[in-house]
């Protein structure tokens, strides 16, 4: 993190709206990737990002160390997405049937549907890591920092995630080959 970035985060924490809007510009896609990874729904993910930003603005003074600001934002988005995910799961079964977990995927091709159900079978953290990697093409160090993981943990997570998806999609993959 260079000095200008840190200065920007510091200003945002101290209530500089312009600095905070700059942070929104830079980080909202990352937050979206995290939320999408957990929720698998673009609309809900967008809502989560919006809510997270508002919440972050209101509680920005809780961050003592400006360096931790992006990780803190990511944590808010993750918790928020997780909350929404849980809320969705507690919706009565009949409603859930009609709304469905991935409503937009109803008409999508079989591969997509399989892919999404395989994704849904992964742990939340694995999904978030995958989306960060494939949405934002972030390198491993940045993803680890954003998700608050220890150094080198990501390779294992992504390895397991890919392997698990690969196993579920094996017949389809064979047909593609």
């Amino acid at each position, binding site marked *: 993190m260079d000095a200008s970035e840190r200065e920007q985060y510091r200003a945002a924490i101290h*209530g500089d*709206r312009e600095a905070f*809007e700059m942070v*929104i*510009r830079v980080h*909202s*896609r990352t937050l*979206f990737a995290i939320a*999408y990874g957990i929720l698998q729904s*673009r609309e809900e993910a*967008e809502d989560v*990002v*919006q809510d997270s*930003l*508002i919440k972050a*603005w*209101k509680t920005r*003074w809780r961050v003592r160390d400006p360096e931790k600001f992006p990780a803190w934002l990511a944590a808010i988005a993750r918790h928020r997405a997780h909350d929404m995910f849980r809320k969705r799961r507690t919706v009565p079964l009949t409603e859930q049937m009609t709304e469905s977990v991935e409503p937009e995927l109803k008409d999508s091709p079989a*591969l*997509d549907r399989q*892919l999404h159900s395989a994704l849904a079978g992964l742990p939340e953290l694995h999904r978030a890591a*995958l*989306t960060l*990697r*494939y*949405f934002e093409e972030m*390198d*491993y160090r940045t993803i680890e920092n954003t998700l608050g993981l220890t150094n080198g943990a990501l*390779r*294992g997570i*992504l*390895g*397991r*995630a*890919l*392997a698990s*998806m*690969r196993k579920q*999609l*094996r017949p389809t*993959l064979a047909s*593609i*080959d």
Partner: protein
Amino acid sequence: MATIHEEIDNWLAGDIHGELSDIERSALHTHLVECAACRKSHQETKTMNKILEETFTQEKPDPAFEQRMLSGFRSRSPQRSGLVKLLVDLMRLRAVQITAVAAILFAIVQVGRMITGENATALRGREHYLEDVQVSEVPAPASPPGQAGSLAKSDQLAAGRPKDMALRQSPPSPPATVEPAKVAQPGTSKTEAFAASPESFANAEEAGQSPVESSASPLVNRKLIRNATVELEIVRFDDAVQKITALANEERGYVSTTNSEKQANGKLRGQVVVKVLPENLDRLLQKVRSLGELKNQTLGTEDVTKAYFDTDARLKNAHVMEQRLIDMLKTKTGKVSDLLQVEKELGRVREEIEKMQGELKYWDSQVQFATVTIFLSEKDMEEPAAFLLKERTQLALYAPDVEKIYNDIKGLASPKVQITNAQLDRDYSGRVSARVSMLIAPEDSDAVVARVKGFGRVENFQVQTERIAQGGSGISENAKTKRDKVELNVTISREEQEQAFQQTSLRIRTSSVDKKAKELRNLTEKQSGRVRSSTFSRDPDGREMASVSLRVPMKNYSTLMQSLNSLGKVEDVSVQRQDRTGSQIDEASAPADISIQVYSQGNIVSSETGLIATLRRTLAQSAGAIMWSLRMIGVAIAFLAPWAVALLGAIWIVKRIRRARR
């Protein structure tokens, strides 16, 4: 590469995401060439990656996403207006938060005080007092307006509190309080005169007497007695008393009593009681404190309001009673005995009135003036007045006749030499020791000690001097030093018990032990030594041995040692000496112990080591060995036999069974 194979998933993920180092990548590819299963996984993972990339590209947010987020943020968290924003930002500062919490707490306390009505009584006793005095002065004609003025002034001065506070405290007649204060304004210049002249004290006293009438006023006022105690350490007592007197005058007070006491070391300690107007008390205390080092200070206020007004009410009743009794006497009807009864009653009532008036007067005087008791002590109070030089001498003597010397020392007793303790012990083994303690006048001490030393051999002599401070502690430059009586403790022991100055042990080989031992005794006596013990023994092999222990004075030691050579071959001479440091010892006459073993060689071959004896022993030992081996064989049989029997039995049974089958 077992690790790559086991963790192939992680390696493949790293590979397709370009997160492997060059070395890692080449290692992975080497493994992929070797391992078909991993190659398949690799292929699948690559396809998987491609699918994911394609799928997620579709799901990526559109380019307007950031703008939407921004506008959403702007609409949902509108910018605050200047003041609110400033306030909110301020509240986030830790210091501001703490201040706010403190302010809220303070406000709660204030509200609580207002509700419970506790607001002024305990905390502002001083203002109350002032206000009280002010009120009590109102109807007194003798009270000069200046005093009231000074009071009003001090009221403003002391607390910086608006006067309306005091007014609120006494709502029934506000004009009564305000008026004298107003009158006082032009008269303030008189206050100095009032304070300085003794007549003005008298005025003050009179003013103090008047509250009997003043208390008739319906005002709620308080009677508070203020007292203070100060403990100071000062350099010179008289100076301090003078200064205190000056300070008391300055503050319109006076010194009521002074007393002092001179310590043994010439330092003064005492007490000054100052009476001062209560409102000047704090100022006086502050000034007094600067006179010396403050050791202790107490400040007390006693509220006598209730008792005061109780007595006052009873006094009024008594006055009414008195008047009625007087009226009764004036009408003079009834029997003489009744009149006498009335007279008697009148006397009692008057006595009571006087008592109560006295009480009120006392309280008034107490309230009028605050009492400051100042305890003064001069610096270095603990400095000693004199020093006493105590000398203690320990003397240990060795003498051939303990009892004689014991009596000789006792014979020294005179008015200047007092024997405090004398003791002669003889234990069951006939050892005699004595102990004499005496006190000697300082001027004779040296001579007496020298005489006692001459009675025997001095083993130990110790002098201990101690300087004892009297009437204090520490050091003093001008305290006198006095020599106390010298204490002398003498222990007398028999020479026998004295430890040898030097110990020597040696062996002399000779053919005729008994004879040489006798010669040795003669030699010892010649050198004025003494044989302390002597033993003689002969063993069956014809070896003879004599042990002789003797003691000679050190001066004859070397002569004796030389003469020993004439007795035989001297061997194994060892000398041991313990030098006693720190004690005075007369080396020439100090005893030296010599223990000598005179011995002879026995038979070369003893009866026990001869040929026959050896043969006999050999036979006996071999017979013993045979017996021992026999015993061991018996033990082995006993050990193995049961198992052998059991094994044979088992074999027999097995054979029987086989035969029976066949």
